[in-house]
């Protein structure tokens, strides 16, 4: 292996390294206050979430309206494990991943047999159910009172005679989130180029053709749903330890809708597009949060704006800012009317 030289990189590679470098020095730029850093972490968190959700609609072509359910499960599991047992964040992350995947399988295995629309409704119902449980099972979750006082993330080396370093302020979370995004993106690229990815794309492009290649539709869809849920739960765990307070209404349906918007806006199925979608919508959401009260409007009007963006996107750029050919082709195909069937000829009268 030779040395990695800048001039050997492709344009895409240079852009990537440039963006990463920018992200790494961002906290030290003059205009970056704690508030800006907070928003940046939010962007990174939503990148993880939308990359996770993207597996289902983007890679498999299935509408999933209940993703926030897994996010909520992940957040509360992490919160409660920390609250009651003081479990370390580094132990919780793999647990959250497995926990999310298990819930994904439990929900997916019986319901992924359903056709698209019914499946979407079931996922929607699931996320509402999660909110109901979080609200009503007060003995476990404290219900609407919320779960305060969750420990921050820390790196504890006291076992080896080292120091214990607690994550105070936004800065350490910012870098933690960058690492998590990098891992997520790496995993997504690996999946995309794997046997698993090829099966998913075949399913997305044409289920009948996929099944005639011997691909087990249900099994691959359940795997997709489980991995997606696992990333949702990991995102939730990070969220819990970052804001250190949880309440059920943080996991309402709107959250699913927002993440879905990021995917559709950025370009369903496109890893970069999805991340751009997260940047655009989180920033826009924050800008609107400032502007709307000035205009005398409630902040909930934000969702009206998101809805409007979705309508405009569907009209003018249905496959997103950075479309992938497969999705663009599907969108075009959806507009073609089916031919009328000619009446049959026959021997019998």
């Amino acid at each position, binding site marked *: 292996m030779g040395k990695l030289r800048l001039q050997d990189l492709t344009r895409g590679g240079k852009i990537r390294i440039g963006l990463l470098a920018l992200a790494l020095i961002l906290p030290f730029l003059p205009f970056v206050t704690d508030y800006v850093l907070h928003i940046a972490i939010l962007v990174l968190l939503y990148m993880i979430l939308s990359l996770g959700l993207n597996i289902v609609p983007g890679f498999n072509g299935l509408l999933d309206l209940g993703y926030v359910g897994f996010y909520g499960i992940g957040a509360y599991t992490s919160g409660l494990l920390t609250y009651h047992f003081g479990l370390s964040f580094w132990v919780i992350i793999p647990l959250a991943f497995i926990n999310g995947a298990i819930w994904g399988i439990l929900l997916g295995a019986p319901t992924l047999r359903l056709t698209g629309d019914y499946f979407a409704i079931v996922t929607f119902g699931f996320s509402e159910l999660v909110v109901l449980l979080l609200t009503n099972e007060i003995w476990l979750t404290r219900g609407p009172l919320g779960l305060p006082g969750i420990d921050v993330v820390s790196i504890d080396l006291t076992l080896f005679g080292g120091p214990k370093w607690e994550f105070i302020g936004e800065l350490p979370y910012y870098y933690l989130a960058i690492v998590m995004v990098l891992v997520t993106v790496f995993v997504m690229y690996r999946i995309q180029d794997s046997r698993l990815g090829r099966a998913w794309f*075949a399913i997305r492009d044409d289920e*009948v053709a*996929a*099944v005639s290649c*011997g691909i087990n539709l249900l099994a691959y869809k359940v795997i997709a749903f489980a991995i997606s849920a696992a990333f949702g739960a990991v995102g939730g765990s990070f969220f819990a330890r970052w804001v250190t307070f949880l309440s059920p209404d943080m996991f309402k349906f709107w959250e699913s809708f927002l993440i879905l918007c990021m995917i559709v806006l950025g370009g369903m199925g496109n890893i970069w597009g999805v991340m751009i979608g997260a940047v655009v919508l989180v920033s826009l959401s924050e800008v609107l949060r400032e502007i709307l009260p000035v205009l005398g409007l409630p902040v909930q009007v934000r969702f009206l704006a998101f809805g409007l963006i979705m309508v405009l996107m569907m009209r003018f750029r249905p496959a997103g800012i950075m479309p992938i050919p497969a999705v663009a082709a599907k969108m075009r195909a959806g507009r073609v009317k089916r031919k009328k069937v000619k*009446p*049959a000829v026959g*021997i019998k009268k």
Partner: protein
Amino acid sequence: MLLELDNVKTYYGNIRALKGISIEVDKDEIVCLIGGNGAGKSTTLMTISGVLTPVEGDVLYKGQSIVSVRPDNIVRMGVCQVPEGRMIFPLLTVMENLDLGAYLRKDKDGINEDIDRVFGIFPVLRERRKQHGGTLSGGEQQMLAIARALMSRPNLLLLDEPSLGLAPILVDSIFETIRQINEQGTTILLVEQNAQLALQFSRRGYVIETGEIALSDTSAELLNNEEVKKAYLGE
């Protein structure tokens, strides 16, 4: 008998697409199923390949019932369908399409051998192997669809209207290749609206109308049958 359909009834909700179909296909035969639009030909193939489940009746492959076998396992057992309308993956290259056709197989050497074999049958695909499926002509796409199915090494190949939308010269050459594939040891159930050609290239035939078998005979007899001539051969 390699394949046996016994009084198969398949419904879409309350639309009764197949009202009790019985078909037999013997090893090494080419059998055709002809009929007009909406007669139930595709539904029959989808029922055999396990995509649809019949409400009544049985499908036997090598004497074993496959109605409750998962479609991917039916492919594994050696029954492969080429769905109607050239369902290739248009955004994947020819090679990637063929690779997907061999999805169930792990034997690298055998796969490469079979890729050579299908390139032998369809030389044009070798030239186009790096091209996207969607950029191929209609005839080439149909060849790719058949080639992809061959990659699973099927014993029984189910072809759904291979001549659909192809120019007449191409249709002849597609049928020639189908015969060639059959001679290399693959049994074929051929569904067609192009009754003339289908009957010329097959040994036996079934005529399906509104979900029922109206006639069945050797193809030579069917070609001479007055009713068939009037309704399907345009004479």
